[in-house]
């Protein structure tokens, strides 16, 4: 299974998560978001970029509770809330945002 973008074929697993996170590009994120029915805004990008930085530092995708706490610390209580994340990513912020960001599914999320 693979996404086709710009003449390239990018492998993914049965749930749509990338097999190799290094193949992710912002253009691919646009395609993945569209598949999820999401129109990317600056607010979406803020979360995606945050997740990618988190992954870079800790080598895991955070659980939702941990993501909310970390966002709160960085961007304040308005953006560090479950509600805010669900508005951006209605079908599960951790799952959807990680997929769009090219990260694996968060551990503990089954």
């Amino acid at each position, binding site marked *: 299974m693979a996404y086709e973008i710009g003449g390239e074929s990018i492998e993914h697993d049965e749930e749509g998560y990338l097999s190799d996170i290094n193949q992710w590009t912002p253009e691919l994120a646009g395609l993945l978001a569209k598949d999820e029915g999401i129109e990317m805004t600056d607010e979406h990008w803020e979360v995606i970029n945050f997740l990618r930085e988190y992954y870079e*530092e*800790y*080598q*895991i995708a*955070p*659980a*939702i*509770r*941990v993501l909310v*706490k*970390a966002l709160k610390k960085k961007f304040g209580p308005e953006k560090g809330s*479950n509600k805010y994340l*669900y508005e951006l990513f209605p079908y*599960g*912020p*951790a*799952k959807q945002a990680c997929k769009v960001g090219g990260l694996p599914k968060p*551990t*503990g*999320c*089954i």
Partner: protein
Amino acid sequence: MEEEWDEDGPEVVKRFMYVNRKAPYGTVYALEMLEKVLIAAAFEQDVHVVFMDDGVYQLKKEQETKGVNMKNFSPTFRALEGYDVEKLYVEKESLEARGLTVEDLVVPVEVLSSDDLKSLMSKQEVILTA
């Protein structure tokens, strides 16, 4: 698990202890154990993590894993604080036998003697070893 967690916290909290006794690479035990710890933490359990025997190597700074073709997952131990997992213990005897000190480790830990560890173990409800 459901992504939306209960704001009031979990209904049942148990004292879990995860005992790491194996070197980080060569087998998947260490990585799988860390996943188990993260899952217990996601369910907001009272998590204790112990490193003893070769398990203390899991916390060693500056791991270089290219040669064994495995992901260096030691940075993930630094994420545990964000998961409210702060009860990390290293057995004193194991650390000393390998010529290591807490300065060599990627995260702050409490160093316990074998005897103190024994009494901490006796207070747990669930103990998993790998």
